[in-house]
């Protein structure tokens, strides 16, 4: 069980680093916003996994709030790029 958690967490770390590379490289604003969206989704999954590692039920609430509110920033940036804010 411990090795499964190690493998999953190393995959998440690699995903974070690769998304950050696309965030720095991305030629347009859309690429950077896609990188932000991917970072948010990886963050929600990582928070739930860390809640299992710490072993407390109350920590899952943070991931819930993150999943509910994390996409509002992406939507606002998209509406601004569309020119309709």
């Amino acid at each position, binding site marked *: 069980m411990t090795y499964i958690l190690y493998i999953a967490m190393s995959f998440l770390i690699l995903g974070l680093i690769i998304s950050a590379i696309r965030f720095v490289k991305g030629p347009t604003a859309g690429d950077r916003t896609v990188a932000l969206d991917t970072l948010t989704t990886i963050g929600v999954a990582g928070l739930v996994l860390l809640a299992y590692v*710490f072993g*407390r*039920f*109350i*920590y899952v609430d943070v991931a819930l709030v993150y999943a509910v509110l994390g996409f509002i920033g992406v939507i606002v940036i998209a509406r601004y790029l569309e020119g309709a804010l």
Partner: protein
Amino acid sequence: MDSLYKMIEYGIYSAAILLILVGLYGALTKKSLIKIVIGLSIVDAGIHLLLVSIGYLKGGTAPIFSPGYEDKADIMVDPIPQALVLTAIVIGFAVTAVALSLVIRLYRHHDTLQIDDIKNLKW
């Protein structure tokens, strides 16, 4: 293993101080007003990280009493800096909002955001 924990503790402190220095550099040397506000918000983030990391206890858990944790008060981290930071985040958001509204007023009056071009302080 113990030295690794010590390393990561110094790593948090140095990262918080570097964050404060980067934000201060941006707020002091940039010419655009929005960039100055961004630098101030980075300074805020560094101060919050420094305060929370002061109250951290190695191997501790969150200071919340839930089923199964009624008698674990000796391994809980310090709740006072967390409460302070919780208030400071909200106040920092309000300060940022007021600063940005002032930026919008200045832009409508002067038609520029460069602080070199905004010379007359008289409205």
